[in-house]
């Protein structure tokens, strides 16, 4: 389904590669957590899958296609089989919940008959059937993220990429979101989720891939968030292990939100929300 073959990614002007010699194989229907410190390369990993970036070396295969061989005019077609969810929801404020989800289908030319079948269906799945006529600002954060998930899932994508989907939500709401994602995964969609939320990772017991300084340092099935490697020389920016109340056995990094704002990878959003002019 997704195959990285010795992939490296250098950004222009950056001293160190964002990803170096990454090889990984993710099968159909898997649920994978990508964990790692901010700037470790998780976002670059997701962008490569989306063909937002091209690898500096190595090959990326997604859905049996070599991404290098997809001409740029075919990229839109390729992206229709992917769904993407962001930390900050990215809903259209002047459109209702229904229209936000329907927008995705309208712009890829689906008939209005299909839209009127598929949208209520997916809103039912994410538990928002009652809020179809509401506007995003009338919803809670959790509900807004459910709309975003509905938008990403409405076209039944083969792969769903989630970039810290619970990053702005409280633990109870996050659990609801994970519930929805699990349901979507159970229907056959491969879900790849970048996250800093240790509670979720530890609870779900799914495949965990840990990236540190552009390299995969851990890849275990039914893993936890526990991080064992702190690269030398990065101790000052590395997460501080603390014991939490939830799971005292596991050393857990505190998500340092204030710290991450100084990280260039966090400032520049992984997806071109604000298109550069």
């Amino acid at each position, binding site marked *: 389904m997704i195959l990285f073959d010795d992939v490296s990614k250098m950004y222009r002007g950056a001293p160190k590669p964002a990803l170096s010699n990454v090889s990984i194989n993710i099968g159909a229907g898997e649920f994978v957590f990508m964990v790692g410190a901010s700037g470790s390369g998780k976002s670059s990993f997701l962008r490569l899958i989306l063909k937002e970036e091209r690898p500096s070396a190595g090959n990326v295969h997604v859905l049996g296609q070599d991404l290098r061989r997809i001409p740029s*005019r075919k990229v839109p077609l390729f*992206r*229709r089989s992917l769904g993407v969810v962001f930390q900050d929801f990215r809903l259209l404020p002047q459109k209702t919940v229904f229209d936000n989800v329907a927008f995705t289908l309208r712009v890829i030319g689906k008939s209005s008959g299909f839209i009127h079948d598929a949208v209520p269906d997916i809103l039912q799945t994410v538990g928002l059937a009652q809020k179809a006529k509401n506007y995003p600002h009338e919803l809670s954060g959790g509900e807004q993220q459910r709309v975003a998930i509905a938008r990403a899932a409405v076209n039944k994508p083969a792969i769903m990429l989630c970039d810290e989907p619970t990053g702005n939500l409280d633990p109870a709401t996050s659990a609801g979101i994970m519930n929805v994602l699990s349901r979507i995964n159970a229907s056959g969609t491969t879900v790849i989720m970048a996250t800093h939320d240790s509670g979720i990772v530890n609870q779900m017991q799914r495949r965990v891939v840990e990236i540190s300084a552009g390299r995969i340092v851990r890849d275990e099935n039914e893993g936890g968030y526990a991080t064992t490697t702190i690269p030398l020389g990065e101790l000052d920016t590395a997460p501080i292990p603390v014991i939490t109340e939830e799971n005292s056995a596991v050393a857990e990094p505190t998500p340092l939100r204030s710290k991450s704002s100084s990280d260039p990878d966090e400032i520049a959003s992984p997806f071109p929300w604000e*298109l550069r002019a």
Partner: protein
Amino acid sequence: MNLGFVLREVAAGLSRNLSMVVSIVLVTFISLTFVGTAILLQSQINQMKSYWFDRAQVAIYMCTDFSTLGGCDQLAASPDQKLAIEQRLTSATLAPYVERFYFEDRDQAYANFQEQFKDSAVVDLVSPELLPETFWVNLVDPQQSDLIFEAISGLPGVESVIDQRSYLDQIFALLNAGSLTAVAVASLMLLAAALLIATTIRLSAFSRRRELAIMRLVGASNRFIQTPFVLEGLVAATLGAALASAAVWGIVTFFVQGYLTEALPSTVFVTASDAFAAMPFLFMTGIGLAVLASYVSITRYLRA
């Protein structure tokens, strides 16, 4: 492609940038009006050329008792000399080029002169003796007046040979310069219009950047994303072209036909049909320019 969706996007884009759209309409309107005026001026020149060049004659002025120019020595041309000219014009060498010619004697010339300057005091100063006898020659091809110069101008009793077209050429050069100026101004304004369209489309795209980002993310085709913007430019430019066409028609109907034709009744002027002939060109220029500018603009915006 969902046509209703695209049209709604176009309407939303146009209403969101209303002031910019109005400025596009105005700039294309004015620049295309200049283009239309240049076209009208050119067809006016062509009409006048074909009208006057057909009537332009070569004048062979004979010596008078007072002329000192050419082969004259203050001695009027003799009947033999005039006969020689007539024979030369009907000779085998020149006859194929000469359509017809006639001889104007002093009394006819005086009558014509009086007719032409009847309101002027100069009439009283001129007597028939002062005016030259003239052979008026119409050529089969008015451009071959050189032949007459070579054959006639050296002959005895000939004061000078004048092609009337040489007077006309100066007038037409002036009119041509005017039409070229209009074209130059029009091209500058069209350039301004193209840049303005490109800027407006960028603004329009920027104000819809959220929608555009989602469209790109969920796999809307490039053509689907671009079409509303190209249509926006097209609608604005079409309005501008329509206004310019109306203005060109107005200029012809009210200024040329309504005023100039009455003021100068002996001159042929462009008619409304010339204005209608220019309109397709105005629309094609405006629409082509707008589509090109907005397409380039939105494509560059999306690629950046």
